[in-house]
């Protein structure tokens, strides 16, 4: 198992549950035991959850695994069937689960400037939490989910917050332009400035950041900057290994890769989606939690099992006290309609359709109806 976060841990659990009783080695580049990342931009950043609350393992859980933490994998030797580690060690494997996740993209030229943060790991979150606690002016670069959640948390902590988004509408990729506009309207509802359709030229400051410079010439004063411009799959270590790379690890519908005995799960894995008829790299918590079961079944059966159709991708976000939930794929939709509630109240159930058939559903503070639609979506498209 290379990767010790949710996808790696879930795969380890699946292996034991499915009867594998052999040696199990979990390699992770972070020093921490597996922890839950979603609260890092929300409750943990706000200080309402502590580090112990983030643990993904139950207190008495023992998977009988050997944990090599704080150790980065640097290569896969296909002939020797061995994973090379940064400290020079090698781990010989019979089967391999790749779960190396993704890393936050950074802003070129921002290295070494104090006050500039990304948010992906527990260490990132600790640093940002400590800085937010001092207050001041926060500029968030990127109006996606991480950026919006950080903005929402910082607003609640009393900071002066500005969000800068290069696209005309934030969240248009995952939610479509219409609903992306409605969800990102939450910023304005709370007096958080949202600047759209403008790129960032760079940052200014000597040792500490003091402003974000925009492409249109404006300069936005900042004490703290959070860069939330997406993530890239951590797969460089697999180059030349024989594992096919294409926007992450290219996988079949059950996580199998181009190499026998090697599967990939989580944010680094670009699985074939039979519903969409295309490969999709899904960076959602739920995928990292659910898909390892199928990948491990494939690994243990030597690829002899027929993959089932996974449930439609699902994710959630909490912003400004509004619970946002989404399932399915917005990209394939040709219409979106509000089935319940009203957009002005930020209390809405919206259904995306393609040629009349539901393909996705979005809820804002509508957990009960949302679950119904999510079930229906899974039933109708399986």
């Amino acid at each position: 198992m290379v990767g010790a976060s949710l996808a790696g841990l879930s795969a380890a659990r699946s292996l034991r549950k499915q009867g594998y009783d052999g040696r199990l080695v979990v390699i992770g580049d972070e020093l921490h035991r597996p922890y839950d990342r979603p609260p890092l931009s929300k409750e943990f950043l706000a200080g309402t959850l502590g580090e112990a609350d983030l643990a993904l393992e139950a207190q008495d859980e023992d998977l009988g695994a050997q944990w090599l933490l704080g150790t980065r994998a640097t290569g896969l030797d296909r002939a020797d069937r061995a994973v090379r580690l940064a400290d020079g060690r090698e781990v010989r494997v019979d089967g391999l689960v790749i779960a190396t996740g993704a890393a936050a993209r950074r802003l070129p030229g921002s290295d070494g400037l104090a006050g500039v943060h990304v948010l992906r790991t527990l260490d990132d979150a600790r640093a940002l939490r400590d800085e937010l606690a001092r207050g001041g002016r926060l500029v968030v670069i990127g109006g996606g989910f991480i950026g919006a959640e950080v903005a929402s948390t910082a607003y609640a902590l009393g900071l002066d917050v500005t969000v800068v988004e290069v696209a005309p509408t934030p969240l248009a990729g995952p939610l479509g332009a219409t609903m992306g506009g409605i969800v990102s309207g939450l910023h304005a509802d709370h007096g958080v400035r949202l600047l759209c359709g403008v790129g960032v030229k760079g940052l200014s400051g000597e040792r500490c950041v003091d402003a974000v410079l925009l492409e249109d010439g404006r300069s936005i004063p900042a004490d703290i900057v959070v860069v939330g411009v997406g993530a890239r799959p951590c797969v460089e270590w697999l180059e030349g290994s024989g594992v096919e790379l294409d926007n992450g690890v290219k996988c079949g519908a059950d996580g199998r890769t181009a190499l026998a005995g090697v599967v990939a799960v989580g944010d680094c894995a670009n699985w074939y989606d039979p519903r969409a008829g295309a490969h999709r790299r899904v960076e959602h918590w739920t995928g990292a939690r659910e898909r390892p079961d199928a990948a491990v079944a494939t690994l243990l059966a030597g690829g002899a099992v027929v993959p089932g159709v996974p449930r439609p991708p699902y994710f959630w976000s909490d912003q400004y006290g509004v619970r946002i939930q989404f399932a399915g794929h917005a990209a394939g939709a040709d219409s979106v309609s509000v089935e319940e509630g009203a957009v002005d109240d930020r209390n809405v159930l919206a259904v995306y359709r393609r040629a009349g058939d539901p393909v996705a559903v979005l809820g804002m503070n509508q957990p009960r109806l949302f679950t119904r639609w999510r079930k229906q979506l899974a039933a109708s498209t399986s």
Partner: protein
Amino acid sequence: MKIPACRLADLPRGEAFRLDIDPPVSVFHTDDGELFAIDDTCTHQDASLADGWLEGCEVECPLHASKFDLRTGAVDAPPAKLPVRTHEVVVEDGMIHVRVSTDAPNLPPCVASRLAGGTA
């Protein structure tokens, strides 16, 4: 303590009824026609399990996919780590009653602090 919930005829199979006591308890009517009562609040975060995905004898939290066994209250996998309490269900004259467990509930950190009078 036996508390009336709702009439059996008003709770179709596949549905849940939330009893607004403190902490809330939900009664589930499974597709097989069985009745179960468990604490309504997910032990991970403030979410109502009555809004969740009921399948067989399990309900999946509407937010984060932890599944609770309606028979035992056990949770299958994180993010929730603690079980919910189970409660005895009694049907008398077509009325569903819940005999609330006297065990201490496993409430999520935000709800537990609110009930204790602190800030969430």
